[in-house]
């Protein structure tokens, strides 16, 4: 059974602005946020059958809810994130502790080598892709590729609204890809086209990309994604996936959605 690491939104709020989505004036409604988070959890547990590992939220760390950025986990190995922004660097030790306390073998990246976890590193069975330029440093991928012995193809992110790879690039089980090409530079677009054959590549329309249609969680044939993305859902359903649209707009105030709220552990 798949396991996902999640963190309840007890302290989730907009306390700072570190991406174009965040506005201090656009306050989070805590009740709605909690309801939306639980809605996603319910869908994941009940519809997709994953097991959820809940970590303890920490007061004063509003973005800990986005566990996709805790680090990256492969088998028994975990590499915790090194955040670019000081606001999120304070989360690092809690994620690292969680990995250690749960028996993971932890490998640390050197200080200053920015890497924002599964928010920027996403895998297909035969290749991993790493987003860089916005948050993670491309040099981190050379190091991670050593640690995991895997090929990691860096992709340059060029639009600040799509600041993590998981906001514009979503690999699904079975090798399909949902993505938004304008978020990438032309070299990265060419590499994606070269690596993923055309019948498996699905381009999200701009309006839905801006609703973070790509920030979806895929477990087997189930896909949980933000609501309001009918074209994306139609694409996915035509490919045989079962879609679960969910209201997650409170989290969009911080520039995150379904995928950002989870970290795959297996």
């Amino acid at each position, binding site marked *: 059974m798949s396991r996902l690491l999640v963190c309840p939104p007890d302290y989730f709020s907009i306390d700072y602005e570190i991406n174009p989505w965040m506005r201090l004036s656009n306050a989070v409604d805590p009740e709605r946020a909690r309801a939306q988070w639980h809605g996603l959890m319910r869908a994941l547990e009940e519809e997709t059958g994953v097991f959820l590992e809940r970590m303890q939220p920490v007061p004063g760390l509003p973005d800990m809810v986005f566990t996709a950025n805790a680090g990256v986990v492969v088998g028994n190995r975990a590499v915790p994130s090194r955040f670019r922004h000081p606001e999120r660097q304070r989360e690092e030790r809690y994620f690292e502790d969680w990995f250690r306390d749960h028996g993971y073998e932890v490998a640390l990246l050197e200080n200053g080598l920015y890497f924002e976890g599964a928010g920027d590193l996403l895998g297909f069975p035969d290749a991993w892709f790493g987003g860089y*330029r916005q948050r993670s440093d491309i040099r981190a991928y050379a190091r991670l590729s050593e640690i995991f012995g895997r090929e990691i*193809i860096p992709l340059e992110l060029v639009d600040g609204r799509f600041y993590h790879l998981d906001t514009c690039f979503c690999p699904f089980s079975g090798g399909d890809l949902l993505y938004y090409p304008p978020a990438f530079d032309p070299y990265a677009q060419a590499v994606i086209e070269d690596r993923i054959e055309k019948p498996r590549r699905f381009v999200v329309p701009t309006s839905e990309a801006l609703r973070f249609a790509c920030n979806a969680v895929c477990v087997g044939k189930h896909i949980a994604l933000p609501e309001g993305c009918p074209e994306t859902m139609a694409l996915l359903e035509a490919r045989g996936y079962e879609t679960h649209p969910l209201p997650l707009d409170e989290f969009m105030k911080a520039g995150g959605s379904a995928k950002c709220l989870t970290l795959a552990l297996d």
Partner: protein
Amino acid sequence: MIQAQETVVLQGHIIDSLILAKVLDTILMMGGTFDLSEMRIGTTRGEPSRAKIIVRASSTALLEEILEAIQPHGASIERESDCVLLPAPANGVLPDMFYATTHLPTQVRLRGRWIEVEGIEMDVAVRVDAGLTAAKAVPMGAVRRGDLIVVGREGIRVLPLQRPKERDVFGFMEAQVSSERPHGHIIVDIARRMRALRDDREAGKEGSDVLLAGGPAIIHAGGREALTWLIESGFIQVLFGGNALAAHDMEAHLFGTSLGYRLSAGRAVPHGHENHLRTINRIRAIGSIEQAVRSGVITEGIMAACVRRGVRIVLAGSIRDDGPLPGVITDTMAAQAAMRAALPGVGLALLVASTLHAVATGNLLPATVPTVCVDVNPAVPTKLADRGSFQAVGLVMDAASFLRELARELGWKA
């Protein structure tokens, strides 16, 4: 022109991801150039690749811009260190592991700054001043105890030659040594350069002097008039030769012979072998070649033209010399130093019909000076190239034919 350069390293999955392509494209699009000095490609998909890239730009500012643009794509500046200096242990002795130069433009890193080595030539050492602000090429014999000498290989970089703007024979930068190749276009290119250099000189530009290093075959073969005309017409500013070139030139004037052979008839004249000795003796009696010209004893020929036009002459003696003529430097190290001192300002070198003078001059010249080596024996330009003067254009032809053709190309009517 010396360019700014920096070495960067790129590693990871840089091939399939097009990261290497992007970095190289970026360098070119911004107006820089690069050399891939090392490239290791991963043999499996999992294995990373590594590229070492030398980035060059026409200015430090442009280089900085390029580096700033490629660093986010993973190009890391290779950690560089200052060059290592050790004091010379004694006069004329270099520290062990001294850095031996090439004749290419060279820089050394002193306190984090890249400083150009002045007066670069091959097979010498690099001396740095006590204030660590300047570096100069220094021959072994000229080193003084305690001089700071660059040792090892760290903090030293040798810059490749840039292709010249002119699209002529020198642009290929390769020794063309073959008697089978046509000469005409090469001579036309040399003449064009000489004309341009004369214009530059008249405009007061530095580096516009022409050097000719020649052997006595110029006289025997009948190139004397052409060379004299070239000097008189202001196409040559520096003359390197030996005792014989000067002796036979003046013998030709005084006796009409070269090494005893009548130049007009090509026959040996009675007791003609004495003529060059009598010539040398006469000049020795006068005291100097210059005085012989000024006093009207020698009124025409190569030496007379040189004196009249103020050409810088270095006559280096050799073991077989008669006399020698006054002014011939018989201490070889002193002669080498005199030749070296005459080189600043030279923008073209013609090495004609002399193995020793050609190789000696070639060794002293920086690679940035376009060089032509003319000899009827293909072994001479080959030898010059083998000794490192790769920039020399080799021309296998008779000295007189070369000089006459060159002079005619420049307007000589004869």
